[in-house]
């Protein structure tokens, strides 16, 4: 039975970008920040305060999970985060919602057909 994820929607910009950045690979905090900046072509910049505030919330909601440190990383202070299957479902639900919004927008923004007299 599929879980009802509608309570998570709509996602905030920060949450959406964080989940999206983790959809491809496990990342540490700084990696998430850079990935968000890349995805938005530098238009959306996420500060560490906002990032870890959201990470804290997403971990509590079990949308992402903390993996801990990696031995091969050059900075031992970094911890990695992974998108959980629940988080992936929420992201998919949000994308579906956004698709509906985009579709509606396209429909509304179409140039009006000239009326026959």
């Amino acid at each position, binding site marked *: 039975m599929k879980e009802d994820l509608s309570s998570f929607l709509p996602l905030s910009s920060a949450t959406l970008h964080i989940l999206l950045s983790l959809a491809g690979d496990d990342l540490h905090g*700084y990696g998430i920040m850079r990935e968000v900046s890349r995805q938005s072509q530098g238009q959306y910049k996420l500060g*560490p*305060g*906002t990032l870890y505030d959201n990470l*804290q919330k997403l971990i509590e909601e079990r949308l992402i999970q903390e993996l801990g440190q990696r031995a091969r990383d050059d900075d031992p202070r*970094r*911890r990695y985060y992974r998108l959980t299957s629940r988080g992936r479902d929420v992201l998919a639900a949000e994308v579906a919602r956004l698709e509906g919004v985009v579709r509606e927008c396209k429909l509304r923004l179409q140039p009006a057909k000239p009326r026959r007299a």
Partner: protein
Amino acid sequence: MLRLFYRWLLRFHPTRFRERFAEEMLSIFDHVEGRTAAAELVADAFISLVRQWTMRSEYWEEKATVSVPAGACGLPVFYTLESYKPRKSALIEGAVLTWIVCSALFLAIRHGKVHSVYLPSLSFESAASSEVQLPTSTPNLPPTQASVHPSTQAIMESRTNSPEANRQLLRRRRSSEANSSAEVSEPKKQARLTASDKLHRTITIPRTIESLRQPVIPSRISTESLFSYVGVYLTDAPDKFIVLITAEDGQLMLEIPREQKSLLVPVYGTRFAFSETQNNWIEFIKRDDGAVYGLRMYRNGSELTGRRKTN
């Protein structure tokens, strides 16, 4: 410097958040290049600090945990509702902060300006006129010049001089009182003087029963004056009872046969109020040379006079 400040901001985050993310946030700060970017992170940390304390209480508030160790008969021995213990550094910082605040407060109290409280007090020594003396602050003047009422000065001087000088001082006192009351008489509503008023001002109020409506403010009376009232007075009441005035422990007492002894509280001039009820009062009558020869007593709605028999 910015790193130090950033670290300091991180230290003030809620414990749970700090323990979990502070090192990572500092790691990001170390990886960021450029002073502008570092300044942006400091601003971000400040916003985060405010957000964590104001909007994320559900994460930093310690939930009340109940510890129920079982006793011998299976009943709980005690409950622990708070598992949070402050850090040692926090306690030290708190102690230092408290010390600084208290020091500043005490310093302010010590070096603060003295503000006079303008509560009108009734002077009892001026027999010629009923005057309300208002205390004013005159910090820049020496005591001999600062706000000494002429009548008060005359009394002070009279304590040290000869009888001849006393008579002269008494004349001076009367003339000065007459001058002062003529010069400075003002309506009663002007009794509220401003804080900058450095003059010792007097306000003449009619000697009516109105003064008795106000609460009696006991004032000090000299021993010399006190003993001048002591004596036995024969009243003109129908039963010609005797009033005995005594001085005990620097206070004037009134004794009437078969009645309880009453303490007399100086009101003004030669007028005294009964301590137990302010509507009853007694006033000593003096001759021109200042000697007390009688009294007037207003008691329980009736007024009577008394003549001094002995000292």
